[in-house]
């Protein structure tokens, strides 16, 4: 009996004892109808081969371990970035349980969201009554300032009309006639979570700017000197938005952060649960129409939203999740150009410190090969950073990346000698990545938590940067944008590199001559 009260063994150790090992071996032998171990080994080896890779890449229908989620997740992400706003998802209720769990597992925070709880009768008759009752209940219970409505695939397949439903609900008194209920159709079978983010951002801005679904006059734009800033769907939103606010403050830029979830996903533990915290005020959201420009940090998260801003006469600028020296330079210089505010010496010094840090450490990164996967913009931002570190982003993969995105990544490769042997993989999944890592090995893999399965199978060390990260804590609290953020990413990469060197040089009298205390 291995268990004892003084040193309680949990699953990490308990089952390794002989009692359990024998029990599990017998279970397998007698009852599981196991495959011949030699055959398992043969297939395991075969799955590493170029031949398997070819079959794997010939897949036309099956998706295995994708690196993307569905539109409604992005919809919820966008909605909670506004002051006092509760996302209301019209469709099946199980979806909402999933989004809330997903965000809570990443941010380690509550994630509030309601559903219209449509069931079979609603599938037949439509979900109008669910909308009428649901809005009334949400309004009464959770006292939001705004309810942002999006959809699940169920509501989309049966063709529920959000505009008409919300109008009817207001007529029935579910919420006051002038209460803000922006909406967006967010079918799960189109695009991915970044599309859902875009649709809801556009829906909310349209609501405030263009006459609240025909219930108010459209706002007349009276251009001012402010700029709008949109971060996009970002696992680092807490640290990043705060860092961006600091940068704008240092520069003296007056900006409206459209969708600011840096507070709602980082509330204090002090005895009070804050269902709502921070967020872009509704007033600022409306007034954002008057801005001279709208800047997006993630082009592929904001294609429709930026088009809307451009149609309202804004200058628009889109970046690709800028990480590192050059990308941050470009971002700040563009902000400076648009606002006419000079970049202060303070930021030049921050820049110099990042350059200094890279110079100190680049010998350890230079020439290393990396595989990256994640959302399209994040992949671009990280690949650009690796190139400026003298590393090679050998495989760059985005399950939700388009052909246009792939061309942009290729152009980035072409811009650097370190990009010469790099390839981009739009629309592929992590099972494709597995074949890539076996057939064209790299030194490190950068991706989200699911990458740990690739690390286990291929032995490629995983550096966790992306969304979701469930199995490491608190990294979302630190920025990856700005020079400060670039430093964080640099250190994250370096820590893994040094850990690997130590791990590979620690066998006494065999390899430990290289177990250096100075690196």
């Amino acid at each position, binding site marked *: 009996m291995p268990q004892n009260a003084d040193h309680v*063994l949990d699953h990490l150790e308990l089952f390794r004892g002989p009692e359990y090992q024998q029990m599990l071996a017998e279970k397998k032998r007698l009852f599981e109808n196991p495959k011949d171990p030699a055959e*398992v080994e043969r297939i395991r080896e075969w799955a590493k081969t170029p031949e398997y890779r070819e079959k794997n890449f010939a897949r036309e229908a099956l998706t295995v371990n994708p690196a993307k989620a569905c539109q409604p997740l992005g919809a919820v992400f966008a909605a909670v970035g506004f002051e006092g706003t509760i996302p209301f998802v019209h469709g099946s209720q*199980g979806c909402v*349980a999933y989004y809330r769990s997903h965000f809570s597992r990443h941010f380690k925070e509550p994630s509030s969201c309601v559903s219209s709880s*449509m069931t079979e009768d609603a599938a037949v008759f439509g979900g109008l009554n669910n909308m009428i009752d649901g809005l009334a209940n949400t309004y009464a219970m959770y006292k939001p300032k705004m309810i942002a409505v999006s959809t699940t695939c169920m509501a989309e*397949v049966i063709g529920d009309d959000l505009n008409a439903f919300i109008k009817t609900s207001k007529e029935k008194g579910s919420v006051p006639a002038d209460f803000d209920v922006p909406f967006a159709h967010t079918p799960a079978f189109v695009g991915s979570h970044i599309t859902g983010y875009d649709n809801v951002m556009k829906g909310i801005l349209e609501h405030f700017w263009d006459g609240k679904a025909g219930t108010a006059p459209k706002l007349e734009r009276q251009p001012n000197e402010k700029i709008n800033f949109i971060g996009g769907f970002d696992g680092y939103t807490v640290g990043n938005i705060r860092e961006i606010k600091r940068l704008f403050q240092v520069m003296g830029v007056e900006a409206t952060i459209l969708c600011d979830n840096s507070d709602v996903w980082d509330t204090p*533990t002090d005895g009070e649960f804050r269902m709502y915290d921070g967020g872009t005020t509704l007033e600022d959201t409306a007034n954002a129409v008057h801005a001279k420009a709208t800047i997006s940090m993630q082009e592929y998260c904001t294609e429709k939203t930026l088009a809307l801003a451009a149609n309202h006469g804004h200058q628009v600028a889109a970046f690709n999740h800028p990480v590192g020296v050059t990308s941050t330079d470009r971002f700040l210089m563009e902000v400076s150009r648009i606002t006419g505010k000079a970049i202060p010496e303070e930021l030049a010094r921050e820049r110099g410190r990042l350059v200094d840090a890279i110079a100190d450490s680049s010998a350890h990164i230079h020439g290393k090969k990396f595989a990256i996967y994640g959302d399209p913009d994040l992949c671009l931002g990280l690949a650009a950073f690796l190139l400026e570190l003298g590393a090679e982003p050998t495989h760059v993969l985005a399950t939700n990346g388009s052909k246009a995105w792939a061309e942009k990544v290729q152009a980035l490769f072409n811009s650097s000698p370190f990009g010469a042997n790099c390839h981009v993989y739009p629309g592929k999944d992590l099972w494709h990545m597995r074949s890539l890592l076996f057939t064209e090995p790299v030194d490190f893999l950068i991706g989200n938590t699911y990458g740990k399965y690739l690390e286990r199978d291929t032995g490629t060390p995983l550096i966790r940067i992306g969304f979701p990260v469930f199995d490491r804590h608190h990294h979302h609290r630190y920025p990856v944008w700005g020079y400060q953020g670039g430093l964080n990413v640099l250190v994250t990469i370096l820590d893994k590199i040094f850990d690997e060197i130590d791990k590979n040089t620690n066998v006494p009298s065999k390899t430990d001559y290289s177990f250096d205390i100075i690196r």
Partner: protein
Amino acid sequence: MSVTKTHDIAEIKARNRALIQEVLEVYPEKTAKRRAKHLNVQEAGKSDCGVKSNIKSVPGVMTIRGCAYAGSKGVVWGPIKDMIHISHGPVGCGQYSWAARRNYYIGTTGIDTFVTMQFTTDFQEKDIVFGGDKKLAKVMDEIQELFPLNNGITVQSECPIGLIGDDIEAVSKAKSKEYEGKTIVPVRCEGFRGVSQSLGHHIANDAIRDWVFDKIPADAAPRFETTPYDVAIIGDYNIGGDAWSSRILLEEMGLRVIAQWSGDGSLAELEATPKAKLNVLHCYRSMNYISRHMEEKYGIPWCEYNFFGPSKIAESLRKIASYFDDKIKEGAERVIAKYQPLMDAVIAKYRPRLEGKTVMLFVGGLRPRHVIGAYEDLGMEVVGTGYEFGHNDDYQRTAQHYVKDGTLIYDDVTGYEFEKFVEKIQPDLVGSGIKEKYVFQKMGVPFRQMHSWDYSGPYHGYDGFAIFARDMDMAINAPIWKMAKTPWKNVPEQTLLAAE
């Protein structure tokens, strides 16, 4: 810690009744009427908890429930390790449930086992418009080519499948024939069916009946010699290894476990189960259906048991043994005696730190009642409990065997209700899920996830109880909870605030 602790039962009941009235006030009239039926204060001697259950959630209230797909793919089928479970429809459902339930298993993932992988047909608009049957058929072909050691395939339907009129049964039959009788199971667990995960469990059970049991040829050669002591563990999902720390006890008492449903389970084990002499059923809610079916069709009796905490474990071991001869009965006594010193040591260590602490629960299938005994073994008291997706038979079992007079009962609790109840009752610990965890921790209340064991476990069996006790202690007695209040802010005595 509890500042509102009161020991007078009449007082507690009055407080709880007032509390129910108070939370109902927030709702529009129609909703208040509906929700009132789900909330109650337990009266001693009643045969159930006096609440309505297993009916539709009210729209817009923030129910904690999931869907039928979650009940089938996430709970029943997902852990069957040597089959590939296709999340059929858009990408999200499979993504959010990917490896999230900690169903432990032994195998070479991606080669002969597939639990922690996400296989999906990733529906696009054209699949909705033109139907997804052809894509599904092609997906099965590609699975056969790339994962040749899979022992079977299931099709876990997401919402659109039933709405666009796809015929997944026809695809499954055709492909099964093409692959020489391969087990391919279509499951109609679209998320809009039923009112919670619960119907998904039932549909998944029925799918095993129709597409696994009924497909076994009558003349199929047995894979092993049966013995008089063969049992199957039904309704244990091996979360953090629960089924393993249960199995070891059954085997130590002389029984032979021929199948695990479904944690660390395999298709061969499902197929062998009709040869069991007894089905032992842990999660009644999710697997009573197949147990009843096997009783009717194969004459296999089934026996509910509870492996949380030494009192219930001993009771259960004796109950299971009562179906067998003296050899097994003696075996049960031997097992109980063997672990007694461990249990004594665990209780001696932790009970003094936990004595008198109060707990509020809100969980899924069996835990709102099953874990009560384990808390009581540690001297703790469960003062409120409720089921996400329980039925009346769950509440009957709860009332008859578990909860005390005056316990607050809340079925399909809403976010608002749960916060208010905790704010007013001020328990020392809340046990619920990931969506609730941070809400209560922000309020300064210690919390343990009672679905995933908060990434710990196992909690089943004697080995598991030691972990359970350690975890409850570390939650309640963590120094951090004394630091939640800002010292320089002169606030009135401990008030836990829910969101307004």
